[in-house]
């Protein structure tokens, strides 16, 4: 991978990876750390990639693993969520109710929901990337939907 290809990969994936990490950590700074670590690994392994699709998929997997390691090694104080979304609030499409409802989920639930609804990943792919059984992914998604439904209402979930 050439430097310009790396830069392209960063442009293409930085927000995506940041959001995966953010779904888990709910901290801007922690999510940025994880994103940086993920790209650092990409640069270190830059010789190994064949194409963009391969890079993007690899980055997703590494990012999820980084989240896992991050959690395992550190106990952290949570940061106020307002800080995390203060810039987003000015965006007309930003839905604070949805953001708060998703934030109330457990961190693994949030990640499964994010991979499912944002990354459009299949249950099988989520299962592989999170290294948990497909049935567990289904459970998480089911529980998450029930929780979100209780906060947001049926229409919100099924529309």
């Amino acid at each position, binding site marked *: 991978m050439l430097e310009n290809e790396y830069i392209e990969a960063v442009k293409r994936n930085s927000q995506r990876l940041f959001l995966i990490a953010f779904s888990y950590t709910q901290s801007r700074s922690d999510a940025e750390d994880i*994103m940086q670590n993920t790209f650092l690994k990409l*640069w270190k392994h830059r010789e190994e990639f064949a194409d963009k699709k391969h890079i993007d998929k690899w980055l997703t997997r590494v990012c999820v693993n980084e989240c896992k390691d*991050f959690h395992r090694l550190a106990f952290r104080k949570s940061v106020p969520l307002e800080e995390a979304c203060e810039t987003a609030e000015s965006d007309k499409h*930003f839905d604070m109710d949805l953001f708060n409802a998703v934030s109330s989920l457990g*961190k693994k639930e949030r990640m499964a929901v994010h991979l499912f609804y944002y990354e459009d990943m299949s249950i099988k792919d989520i299962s592989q990337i999170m290294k948990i059984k497909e*049935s567990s992914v289904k459970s998480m998604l*089911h529980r998450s939907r029930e929780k979100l439904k209780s906060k947001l209402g049926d229409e919100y979930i*099924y529309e």
Partner: protein
Amino acid sequence: MNKKYKQTFSAIYPSDKAIERVMEMTKEKDKKSKKANRISTMAVAIACLAVFVTGVLAGNVPKGNQTPALTSESSISGKTAPGFAIIAYADDTKTKFDKKNYEIKTPLKSKIGAVDIRGKSNKETDAIVKELYRKYNLTDWDFPCYESEDKNVLTFLDTNNTIYDNAIIYQYRNGFFDLDLPEEAVKTVKEIRVKNTNRDAYVLITTLDAYYNPDGTLKENYKMYAKSTGRTNIDFENDEIPYAVLSGESYKKDRALEKKHGKRMFGISWVIGNGLIEKINQDPNYDFSQISDKLTIEVEFEDGNVSQSVVKIATDKEGYIFAKPEAFEYIANKN
């Protein structure tokens, strides 16, 4: 949901500075990975549940573990309705269920624990956590529920980023009760209702994958209600979980009941709620033997018959959880 979700989260970006740092990495070939293990002031985190009750052979009970007094008498009054029993399975598929008396007095291997970290440095606290991971042979995601009852699973308990600064609170192993329904009756289950009395705990109903659609939603025509008095991390009105069903693929494939009933199996999980976790954080030396609960499980069949079973749950001082069915009763035929 998809569109709104994407729109909402697309509005959140990493900072320009973070992107710049990533770009600059190409110029810093030997730059070491920024360690993700910065230790902030101590906090115990983790989402997810759960204290689940796992059956275990009496011989596997850790030393010094005393069975708490569970004095309730079992009884059977049902004659015509399909009866059912509650079985706490051992992880080696054996169970200490006395069919003659419809009674189990089984010490369960599930354990809740807490480590006092008041006055500990971040380094000391991390060492405690690592030791717990090592001690319990923690799996990758320490996912607490439903998938690995046969593994040593450790779950740190918290509720969505709430900081517990006095104690590391954890749960070792998980599992659940099986509802042992007669072979014919299991095919006619219409509705399952469960409620408990402890406001610091709640209940969930589990079932097999066969009840799920491919997208993870529950198939129609099955009604399973867990009406819990317990406070949960879900802000349902009236503290009620209207619909709590989890995948039960964790049922072992070679279990006798599954052989007997095929894909139709149901289980009940008992879950520690936030209230208790908060109490333990306030007092890391919390006396776990104060914990108890009473579950009332009703199964309604297609012919309108209803059977009821009651199980008492208790925890000893060490945090090991025990259970004993209290009563088994045929209630009524609604027709």
